């Protein structure tokens, strides 16, 4: 163990080919990270352009058609290309085997295949921009999507292909978690991030095929007109919504569950405290995964579905909220009597608590049917899902990225600039989206290119906020990229974490661990273990010493 080695997964093999054909989960994770960051940048640019157009009512910069294409692209790119793969396929790929003490995921070749399928899907999705762009919104509602003249097929085919990438990642993770845990690591000794990825994988595997078949039918409908979504031919366009949300509601938990997993890691590491209610958090991830399949109809309270369905869906919606609430309380209790430090990942954890609380509580408002009738398809919903998806998932993703960055690259980033970017993102986010709650409750519908003058002031603040967000992200891009080349060398365990990924070198060697690690303590045993300057200190040793001294 003491052999000083500088060989690691980044430099052991060289050249572009060694990356493109790699079977190493860490390299595949990094290629994913690179790809999803490009997608995030693109989606972000689309968002800034949307906000720019909405600065004033009427036509400022784009025509209505261009605007409609922009919000469609923003939604589709952010959801299918960024947020779904961001945590599982990029960060998860890197940390899952490390956290389990494994050498790789169960199926490395499938892992690489999933990345290339992602790339092909992304190319199809982005090709739609050249081929005349899509203007349906990312939800592709029929019959609009079957009748519009834009290139719906290229985009939906892209989403269909991306679905396979997501399924393969899910299959791979499930097999990995079942079969490749280090000796001694029983199910309830796994890090909670692993539980979260497990629950996520279950949803990916069960929900994605249904979206796949639905998009496939949409494509066939557009090409040869099979009539099943076409009201003129005896088909039912609303059926598409049912099938679409059967996937897309569970999909929001594909997005948030891994984020919650990251928060569980961050809150323990930076509080140096055993997680409060381990089993409850683990079970609530599975609970969320299961109930998430039964709530899709809450997207359709105004669609003409029966009152009985609405009642059932509303009821179940509240019960998917409870496990999320439980997690929030558990994290809070974890901080109690901790030893808290405020490095960048912890700042993101605090931001998550703040933003996700708002996202969750406004979700309760929307779950009440009578209120949803008013709020449905207004900016209130837009604000709500940005608070959960961006305030929740993206903030957790950023926290996780800052947390594992030293492990990934072996370099530290500038803590000072990280704080500046964090502050800009946190404030900018709230300015952009808190205003939208009021826009929505006052009646401003979403996907509006033009709006009544009375909504102008709030739209203006929202746009200003988006600029602040943009600057925050540019600063982050700068100091992170700078750190890869010029950052100071990172220790193996800069934050004093007790999960297995911190027991190997930074960056890890190609096969992750010199020797097969064996679980010696549980992931959050901060009551008896701590790590100071990469050295593990055990409580029993300290006691012995004290006894000798006495």
């Amino acid at each position: 163990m003491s052999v000083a080695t500088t060989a690691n997964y980044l430099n052991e093999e060289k050249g572009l080919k060694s990356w493109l054909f790699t079977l190493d989960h860490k390299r595949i994770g990094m290629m994913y990270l690179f790809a999803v960051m490009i997608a995030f940048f693109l989606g972000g640019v689309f968002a800034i352009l949307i906000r720019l157009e909405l600065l004033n009512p009427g036509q400022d910069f784009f025509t209505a058609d261009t605007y409609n294409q922009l919000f469609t692209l923003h939604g589709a790119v952010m959801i299918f290309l960024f947020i779904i793969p961001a945590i599982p396929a990029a960060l998860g790929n890197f940390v899952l085997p490390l956290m389990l003490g494994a050498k790789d995921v169960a199926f490395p070749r499938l892992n690489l295949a999933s990345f290339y399928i992602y790339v092909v899907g992304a190319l199809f999705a982005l090709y739609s921009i050249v081929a005349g762009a899509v203007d349906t919104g990312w939800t592709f509602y029929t019959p609009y999507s079957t009748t519009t003249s834009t290139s719906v097929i290229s985009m939906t085919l892209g989403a269909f292909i991306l679905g396979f990438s997501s399924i393969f990642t899910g299959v791979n993770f499930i097999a990995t978690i079942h079969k490749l845990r280090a000796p001694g690591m029983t199910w309830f000794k796994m890090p909670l991030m692993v539980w979260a990825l497990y629950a996520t994988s279950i949803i990916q595997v069960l929900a994605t095929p249904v979206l796949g078949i639905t998009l496939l039918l949409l494509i066939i409908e557009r090409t040869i007109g099979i009539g099943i979504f076409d009201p003129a031919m005896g088909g039912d366009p609303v059926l598409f919504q049912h099938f679409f949300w059967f996937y897309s509601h569970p999909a929001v938990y594909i997005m948030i569950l891994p984020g919650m997993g990251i928060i569980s890691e961050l809150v323990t590491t930076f509080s140096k405290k055993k997680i409060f209610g381990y089993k409850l958090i683990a079970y609530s991830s599975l609970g969320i995964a299961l109930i998430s399949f039964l709530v899709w109809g809450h997207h359709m309270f105004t669609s003409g579905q029966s009152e009985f369905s609405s009642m059932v869906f509303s009821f179940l919606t509240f019960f998917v909220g409870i496990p999320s609430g439980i997690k929030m309380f558990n994290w809070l209790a974890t901080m109690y009597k901790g030893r808290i430090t405020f490095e960048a990942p912890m700042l993101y954890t605090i931001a998550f608590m703040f933003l996700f609380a708002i996202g969750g509580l406004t979700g309760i408002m929307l779950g009440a049917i009578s209120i949803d009738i008013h709020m449905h398809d207004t900016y209130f919903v837009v604000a709500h899902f940005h608070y959960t998806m961006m305030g929740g998932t993206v903030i957790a993703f950023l926290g996780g990225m800052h947390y594992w960055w030293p492990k990934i690259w072996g370099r530290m980033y500038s803590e000072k600039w990280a704080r500046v970017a964090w502050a800009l993102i946190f404030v900018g986010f709230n300015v952009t989206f808190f205003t939208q709650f009021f826009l929505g409750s006052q009646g401003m519908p979403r996907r509006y290119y033009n709006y009544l003058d009375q909504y102008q002031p709030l739209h203006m603040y929202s746009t200003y906020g988006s600029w602040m967000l943009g600057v925050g992200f540019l600063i982050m891009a700068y100091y992170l990229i700078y750190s890869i080349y010029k950052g100071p060398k990172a220790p193996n365990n800069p934050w004093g974490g007790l999960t297995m990924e911190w027991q190997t070198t930074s960056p890890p060697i190609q096969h992750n661990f010199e020797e097969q690690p064996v679980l010696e303590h549980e992931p959050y045993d901060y009551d008896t273990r701590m790590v100071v300057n990469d050295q593990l200190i055990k409580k029993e040793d300290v006691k012995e010493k004290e006894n000798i001294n006495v």
Partner: protein
Amino acid sequence: MEHAEKKPSYLQHHFADMEQQTDAAKLGMWVFLVTEVLLFGGLFGFYTFYRAWYPEMFMEAHKYLDVAMGTTNTFVLITSSLTMALAIRAMQLGKKKQTIAYLAGTLFFAGVFLVIKYFEYSHKIELGMLPGKLYFFDGIQAANPHIFFSVYFTMTGLHGIHVLIGMIIIGWVMVRTMRDDFSPEYYNPIELTGLYWHLVDLIWIFLFPLLYLIG
């Protein structure tokens, strides 16, 4: 490598032993099969919805499907599942030639299935019993008969694609058997192919009564 004991060539580096590798592969396959079930599950959902909406039309339109051909195909597929299982058994016993023969048999029956399907399809295409806008048959009185054929063609079409993919995989496994890749100690790919093939068979066993034997 520092590993002292010899590892068999087919054991991948990140697994501790063959048992772990085989278990992982089997689990992965089962999970993948679940996604396949849900893929078809979506279509069964559409089927259920439209059958509930247009019960008379489904009743009338299904009579134009050829029950004799459908029944034959059911037997053909079940037989192919049997030969697939026998191929695995043969490899467990180390009988390479038998394995190849059974795999060839499976391929043959899969081919027969597709040929019969081809005759069914071309008959329908000739008469205009086609999905959606392509429909031009005028023998069915009930409204919206094209919906039935949309459902029929997408379901059997997707199933047909699965049969085709299955044939490619069986062919590849057969080539690997000839190359002596497998032994009674290592025949996991044949077993996994078998799992997949049984699922393809199983889906047909659901499709057949739902489409051909309504009522």
